[in-house]
């Protein structure tokens, strides 16, 4: 983008839109950020806030590890309300089969310079004494992070606004026509580029974009400081995250800065309502107390559901919308929106500026899916 003061209109102030606003403004672009509610109030507020190097595919690992680095760099300037903690992740191996997966995972991380340590059972229990006996070991990834996402989104927005970004909150976007965004209060805002960062709402503005809501359940407990010290995830998690079965549940427990435990996780396609499903909730909790027997007596104080924006192939859509020359997409991040938000923002910025990107950008271009579906029509 030759015009250094080009005007970017960002739709959606979830973690992705908020990160874009902060990153774009820092580079001198003019930004207007629009949200029907307030920053971080959608899927951003419903999820776990785990910033994790995720190796479901080479492209997923490239983006998540790049973005994780960006979070590490940003961490010094985040206020305490963001609850940034470098707790690290332990991928837990229940059996020998899992242990061979641990070794493979370790090699994958090693190859791109991500620190990880294979834990034998004794080392695992030293790290996490509340885990049930009989586990085979695990993989410790020390530089994974936990944050409180709604506060992070708000802080990114506050920073952007302090540097001159315009923010319009509490007003919904009705439609986009060419370079113009039409709002419910009859405002019209014209930009050089429009970023659709509406998460599961992205198809409202870009109907051709395949984003499916993938529902998840979470439960949070009373405060039990130091009950676990890392985000604990079973190795079977990747099967759950990347499989396509209609309902899947995995052991995934996170220590919060408050001392609470946040317990996940479940994945369901094609469920629209937000009512907690007892079967899924209790399956999830059973897994948690199976791995952490002492958690049985902890009080659960709140359970809820949320909706991840799932793309057609498991990778986010980051890049130009082949159907609308004025629109760029930043959606479809599924469960990795917090992790990959900063990476997404920088990938977009570098491409908008015509600069080379830190990691190859093509794998995330929406064209990979949209050209295909266009051809089928």
């Amino acid at each position, binding site marked *: 983008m030759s015009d250094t003061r080009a005007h970017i209109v960002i739709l959606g102030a979830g973690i992705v839109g908020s990160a874009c606003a902060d990153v774009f403004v820092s580079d001198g672009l003019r930004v207007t950020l629009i949200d029907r509610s307030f920053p971080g109030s959608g899927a951003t507020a419903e999820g776990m806030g785990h910033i994790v190097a995720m190796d479901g595919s080479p492209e997923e690992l490239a983006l998540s590890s790049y973005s994780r680095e960006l979070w590490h760099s940003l961490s010094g300037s985040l206020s305490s309300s963001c609850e940034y903690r470098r707790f690290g992740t332990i991928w837990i191996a229940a059996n020998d089969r899992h242990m061979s997966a641990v070794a493979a995972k370790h090699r994958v991380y090693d190859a791109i310079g991500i620190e990880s340590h294979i834990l034998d059972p004794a080392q695992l229990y030293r790290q996490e004494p509340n885990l049930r006996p009989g586990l085979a070991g695990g993989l410790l990834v020390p530089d994974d992070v936990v944050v409180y996402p709604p506060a992070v989104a708000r802080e990114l927005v506050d920073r952007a606004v302090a540097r001159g970004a315009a923010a319009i909150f509490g007003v919904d976007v009705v439609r986009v026509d060419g370079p113009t965004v039409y709002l419910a209060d009859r405002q019209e805002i014209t930009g050089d580029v429009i970023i659709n960062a509406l998460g599961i709402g992205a198809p409202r503005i870009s109907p051709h974009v395949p984003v499916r809501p993938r529902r998840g359940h979470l439960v949070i407990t009373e405060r039990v400081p130091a009950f676990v010290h890392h985000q604990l995830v079973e190795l079977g998690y990747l099967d759950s995250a990347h499989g396509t079965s209609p309902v899947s549940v995995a052991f995934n427990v996170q220590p919060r800065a408050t001392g609470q435990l946040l317990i996940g996780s479940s994945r369901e396609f094609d469920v629209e309502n937000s009512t907690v499903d007892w079967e899924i909730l209790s399956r999830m909790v059973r897994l948690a107390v199976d791995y952490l027997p002492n958690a*049985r007596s902890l009080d*659960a104080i709140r359970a809820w559901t949320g909706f991840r924006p799932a793309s057609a192939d498991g990778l986010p859509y980051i890049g130009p919308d082949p159907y609308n020359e004025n629109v760029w997409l930043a959606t479809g991040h599924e469960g990795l929106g917090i992790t990959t938000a900063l990476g997404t923002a920088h990938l977009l910025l570098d491409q908008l500026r015509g600069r080379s990107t830190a990691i190859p950008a093509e794998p995330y271009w929406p064209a990979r899916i949209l050209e295909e579906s266009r051809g089928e029509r």
Partner: protein
Amino acid sequence: MSNDTRYEVVVVGAGPGGIAAACCAAESGKSVAVIDENAVAGGQFWRGGLSQYGTRQASQWLKRSQAVSIDWLENARVVALRSPDTLAVCRTDSEDVRTVRFGRLILATGARELFLPFPGWTIPGVTGVGALQALTKSGLDIHGKRVVIAGSGPLLPVVALNLKQYGADVLLVAEQAPEDRVGRFAASVGEQYSTDTWVERVSSNGDGELAVDIRQSGDSIRVQCELLACAYGLVPNSELASLIGCRVRPDATIEVDAQQSTSSAGVYAVGEVTGVGGANAAIMEGQVAGYAASGNTEALEPVLAQRDRVREITERTYAAYALREEIFRLAEDDTIICRCEDVALGSLLSFAAGRTAKLQTRCGMGPCQGRICGPITTRLFGWSSGSVRLPGSPVSLGQLAALGDR
């Protein structure tokens, strides 16, 4: 997971309203269960059980409840609906869980005290009014203790008299309402009862002594005491009703029709959850719901009119205790609003909506899930209390896991 017995009528809450509802349903020939959190039926009004109370009302309902067959599920808490006709129930004294199926459901879940913040309201030695009474009844030694009772409502003089019987030295009963409205209550307590009077702040000097700053008919006075009990009336316990999907008004009362039926088919509500009215109103409403849920139209007819008369009287009584504006302006920037998460007034002032404030400050996200601060922020800022999330009350992970295990 133990049995899931089905009852034609299930009552949640064993206070006066719940007991009356259960008796009337059982007398109408229905199979009835009553689920209550406490070890003994009685609720707040008959705490400790009806047999302890010598009143004609208590003995009448004790007799009626003993003459019919009712299953009393005590030390049990309803967590949520397990399915449209099944309650998920947890024991409060063990890890056991069970389900209970119902044909008709009657909610008699009562009310809790309304606290409004003033500087010092969270320091040790400051309690609720009903809370201090309950503590005393369950063994707190209050003999010779200097006590100030403050806030608003007919409970104040009742508790004052009660604490005096336990030997407390009640220095002052501070009622914020003006004398012309509530004057007749004064006689029962005596000279300590003071209208147009409210607590402005309290501080502790460290050795168990409280200094209470009080506004009394325009003057400021300071009273030294050991205990301050303060509450501004009651807030309906309508969380379970919300979880079930019953329509609940912004003031947290459950909407009911003339037969105490809620907006959810087959679900009734009686007593304080439908609007604060005291035990007499709750008993009348319980009878209406008990007969209505049983289809006993013959018995229902006469109690409808009685219920309306009692309601009218109590509504007039409670209207006298409307809270004055000054009460809502006592908190200062560093006064705690959310006790669970230590959120002070000042950090809430920049938010326009309750949900934003909750997400950003955790106000209402703690173990009590906004039961104390929700009614406060509704009154101070006009924020809606927001959706109630499962579980309706804290439940252990072990119980949560077991409840889905079927």
